Every structure is written in C-alpha cells, then in structure tokens.
C-alpha cells in the first residue's frame, strides 16, 4: 500500500515538474547521514527471548531540488535502520513532497512531517504524524504522513493551516527480541480500525497560530483516526488494541518573558470509547553566558496530567518533570539534557540523559541513557518496561 502512494505521488510530481520547466535555475542538494548505534540494556530481561545488546546501523539520505527562487521545491528524506530486533529493522519515507509558496500562501503535497506544540516532556498537541515508536523512546521520531496542506498567512489574524490526510499509518511495536515491549508481542497488523475504511479513512485537521508581543498561541483540531491505539485489557490480562476515530482539540501557549519561557499544552480527545483531557504546563528558565564563555544552563519544570489515568499509553497521568539543558556554545556544539520524570502518586521514576557533540566538521557523537527506577508493578503499561533501562551511543558521519 505504501508503494502505491509513492507511485501516485511521484506521478503528480513529474507532471508539476514538467510544467515548471521554463522557470530559471534549478538548485539540487544531496546529503547523506550514516549512523552506527549501540544500545545496551543492563538489567536482565523481563520477558523471554529479549536481548541485551543491540548493535544497529542507520542511513538517512536527503535530496532537495528547488526552483523559482526557492518558492517551489521537491523535498525527500529517506530512512533505513538495521537492528537486532527485526521490528526495529525498518525503512520509511520521512518526507517526499512538492511545495509551492506564493505571497501569503503555501501549498504542500506529499509525504511530510509537521510539528505542533511548545512543551518539552510530552507532545500532546502534535498529532499529524504517527510516532516511530521503535526508533526512539522519547517519541520525537515520526513516520512520514501523506497529506495536502494549505497554509494561509495573514499579518493581523495569524496563520491558518488546513490539512487533508488521506491515509493512516500504524505504529510499529518492538519485536520478540526487542526491549520496551509488553509480555506478548504486538504485531501492528493485529491492530484493527474503528473506521470501516480502515487506513483509507479521509481525515482532516486545522490549525491557527499567531503571536502577540510575548504571547505565542496555537489552536488546533483533528478529526480522524487517532495516532495512538486504544488498549483494552480483558479479565485474563490479554490486550486488545484498535485505532479509534477521534475528535481532538488542542491549545498551545508560550509566553516568552526575559529569560523565562512559560508553556502550556492541552488537549481534549473524544471518541466513542474514550473521552478525556490531558495537559502539560511548565516553564523553562535559562541562565545564559554564565562563565562569560558561552555556557548556558537552562532549568525546566513541567507538570503532566492525563485524565486517562494508568491507561495513558505514555504513562504520564499525574507526573512531574524536572530537567536541565546545558549548552556550551562551543565550536563543537556540545550540549547535555538531563531530566527525571516522576509519578506523583507512586514511586515510579524515569531518569534520562542525552548528550551530543561534533567531531571534526562532519562527525557527531551522541550518548543517551534512560533509567527506569522503582517502577510501580501495578502500572499496566510502564511496569512492562521496568527492566529496560539502557545506554545508547551513536556516531554519525555526514556526507
């Protein structure tokens, strides 16, 4: 099915491309990133057949061609990963779209990634793209989403974004050898849809974004098949999961006042099988240039609430996140992000560390650690990950 869409899109690209033949200069740009990664889970696996060591390799090619002074372009970003866990071995077209901008509007057609929101510890409002759940733990990696996007920009009334989303993509879960999974392996094809049209349900979304002085505000609405599967547990503990049709309204606000960033993100999601609100609210304060040599230390604090309680897929129902972002602002762009997220009702805590720096002009190294500490065994989702603390190191070369 994926292939069909691609062929369809490529077809429309070539037509558009031919029409613009007469416009002047074409600018081509090709980039390639090769990444070697090693993940080590130091606790004994909770479930059978789970491995401890995960050497892995990833490729990220990028191609862009633009013309009409950059107001028209075709953009491509591909992705492939080879991993010990055969479900984490996967490829994706992150982006492949045609874009045209003119005066106060922009049009995008194809597979694209769109980000909404302001918070750091949880991304509630961000709903356009499916999460690439096997790729990273923080959920910030996304699968490419087929769309037609029309953006209308006004000076006085802000920016209006309209999305037509013709195809839903399912989330992939870890395979048998993989960590960060449930006792039974979930195959994405086992998950059903509420909609009779299945993945071809025609979904829509809208977003308004504006800023006034120190206020940045976004309002959004999504109507279609949700990106998060809904999990239900029967009496014997078996999981049944499906993708519901949802209406989700979102609001995101940031107030940028001196060195303070005050943030709020909230959603209301409504489906036949569920109805809840969730929010994340907090602040970020940066002590900048502390040592007169560029060192910035930011402190972050966010409160997370989810009305779904324990069944929130991300297990962030009533939690507190505290963290610090340290940027050295050196020639190597060295930076460190440390944090901890703790459940205010139980002992469950997840610590995390992410650090990165550049070597030479075209190499980067990253270190990541996630530590699951005192996870409450009664948490139906998070308790499955209680032995899955890990270290990750990755090295990338850019061409």
């Amino acid at each position, binding site marked *: 099915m994926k292939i069909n869409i691609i062929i369809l899109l490529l077809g429309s690209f070539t037509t558009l491309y031919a029409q613009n033949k007469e416009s002047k200069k074409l600018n081509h740009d090709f980039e390639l990133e090769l990444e070697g990664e090693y993940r080590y889970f130091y606790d004994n696996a909770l479930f059978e057949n789970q491995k401890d060591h995960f050497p892995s390799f990833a490729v990220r090619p990028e191609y*862009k061609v633009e013309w009409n002074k950059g107001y028209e372009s075709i953009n491509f970003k591909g992705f492939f990963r080879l991993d010990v866990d055969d479900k984490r071995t996967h490829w994706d077209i992150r982006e492949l779209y045609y874009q045209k901008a003119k005066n106060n509007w922009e049009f995008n057609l194809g597979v694209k990634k769109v*980000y909404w929101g302001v918070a750091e510890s949880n991304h509630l409002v961000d709903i356009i793209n499916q999460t690439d759940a096997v790729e990273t733990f923080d959920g910030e990696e996304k699968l490419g989403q087929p769309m037609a996007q029309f953006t209308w920009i006004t000076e006085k009334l802000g920016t209006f974004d309209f999305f037509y989303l013709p195809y839903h993509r399912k989330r992939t879960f870890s395979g048998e050898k993989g960590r960060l999974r449930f006792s039974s392996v979930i195959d994405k094809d086992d998950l059903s849809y509420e909609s009779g049209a299945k993945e071809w349900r025609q979904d829509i979304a809208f977003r308004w974004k504006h*800023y006034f002085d120190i206020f*940045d505000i976004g309002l959004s609405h999504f109507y279609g098949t949700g990106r998060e599967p809904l999990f239900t547990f029967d009496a014997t503990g078996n999981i049944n999961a499906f993708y519901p049709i949802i209406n989700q309204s979102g609001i995101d606000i*940031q107030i940028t006042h*001196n060195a303070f960033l005050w943030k709020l993100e909230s959603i209301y999601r409504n489906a036949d099988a569920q109805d809840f609100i969730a929010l994340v609210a907090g602040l970020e304060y*940066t002590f900048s240039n502390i040592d*007169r040599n560029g060192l910035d230390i930011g402190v972050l604090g966010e409160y997370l609430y989810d009305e779904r309680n324990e069944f929130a897929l991300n297990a962030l129902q009533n939690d507190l996140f505290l963290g610090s972002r340290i940027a050295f602002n050196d020639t190597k762009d060295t930076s460190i992000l440390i944090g901890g997220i703790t459940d205010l009702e139980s002992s469950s805590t997840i610590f995390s560390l992410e650090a990165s720096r550049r070597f030479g*002009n075209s190499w980067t190294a990253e270190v990541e650690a996630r530590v699951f500490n005192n996870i409450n065994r009664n948490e139906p989702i998070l308790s499955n990950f209680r032995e899955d603390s890990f270290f990750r190191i990755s090295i990338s070369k850019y061409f």
Partner: protein
Amino acid sequence: MRTLIFTGIALLGISMASAQSAEDRGMQIAKAADKADQGFKSSIVNLKMTLKNKNGQKSERLLITRTLEQTEDGDKSLIVFNSPKDVKGTSTLTFTHKIGSDDQWLFLPSIKRVKRISSNNKSGPFVGSEFAYEDLSSQEVEKYSYKFLEEKGELLLVEQDPVDPKSGYTRRIVTYNKNKQYRIEKVEFYDRKNSLLKTLTYSNYKLYKGKFWRALSLNMVNHQSNKETLLKFSEYNFEADLAEEDFTQVALKRAGQ
C-alpha cells in the same frame, strides 16, 4: 593619575569649546550613518564564518542571511545554516525592535519544530564564534547613548554605551568614515570591567547601487582569549525584492526544510 586628570580637563575644554556637545555630535554621526543606509529595502547574502582558536585550529560555518528593512521599527532577518552538515537547516527568524527585546524564533529541522526563544542572551557567543548575539543584531540608533571622541582625518571616533543593561559591554568605540557615507571601519569592544575585549575590523568594502557600502570581510579578534572569527560575505543581492511574507514562521520552516 595627574596626567589622567589633566587629559580629562583638556578633553572637557575641547568639547565645551565646540558649539555642540560631544553627546549631540556622537548621536548626529550615528544618525547620519543610519540614514545613509536607508532605502536598501531587502538583501540576501551568503556568509562563510571561519572560527580560529588560540592554537590556530579552524572550523567553518556557512550561512545565508536575508534582511528586510523596516522604517518604523527594527529590521527583520532570517538566517539559515548550511554547514556544518549536522546543523544544516537550523534557522532563526528575528524581528528587532528599536526599543525593548527582539522577537526571535528558532527552527529545528530534525523534528520540524519552530520554537520561540528568549532574546535575553545578548552577550553570549553566536554558534561558538567571537561574535556575540548583540554584535550581529540590527544596529538601531536607539540602542546606544553616544559621545563623540575625536576626528582623525576622514575618520570619526564615537563612543557608544549600550542602553540595555544585559549587554556584555560597558562601551564600544566605533570608527566611522565621514567621506564614505559614514561607513564603519572599526569597532572596539570594552567588557563589563571596562578592559578591551575585542576589535572588529571591516575591510573589502564594496559600494552597491552607488549608495550602500557593504564590507565583504569582517574580522573579530578577541584580545583576552586570542581567538578570532572571520566573516567572508559573497556578493550582496539587493534585487531579490523580498517581502513581509518572506519573514514569517512559515517562511522560516521553508528556508530550513
């Protein structure tokens, strides 16, 4: 000490003798320089930044800067990084204001996120270079108080004290060239302890449209750390005819995608 006092009295005498106060003359020069640059409308320029540490090791960054002139308020700018490749596409959109803090947004291409960032950090280094954020932001007359120091042939030296207490400097000494549309030839930066921190030298000047002087080389030397940053500009493009729509958050994402 005695010489200092005598010099002080002597300088006071000179400024009193002139019809106009040193403050007024300094302000007048800054305004003349600002006025000479009015009417460029918009520009696009490619920039190579070479960072050199005290051992002479170099690293490079490539950027594209788009600027839109504003008359009522400070200029708008959009900066895109093209190199190093791991930060390619990282972009900033800045609306400078003559009074108050600037509005600034950062685009992170890996997760496609636009983030409003604080413009509070004026004194911090821009991407590890010897240029602070405040050195690269739009130079508005209102951001300093002025004092004319001396005239050396065609060169006019003016002391500029930043109005913003968050600035990393007590003062700058700016050398203008009165025969070349008041273009800037050199800036000396004094840190918060009032000792000489950096010298910025403008060279390789080129005249565009018979009116606008642009230095194609800027060299910043930090006297305290012995590090250097050289900016090499390509040809300026004043014909792009950029509009307000090229300086929006949508345009920021487009530039960095």
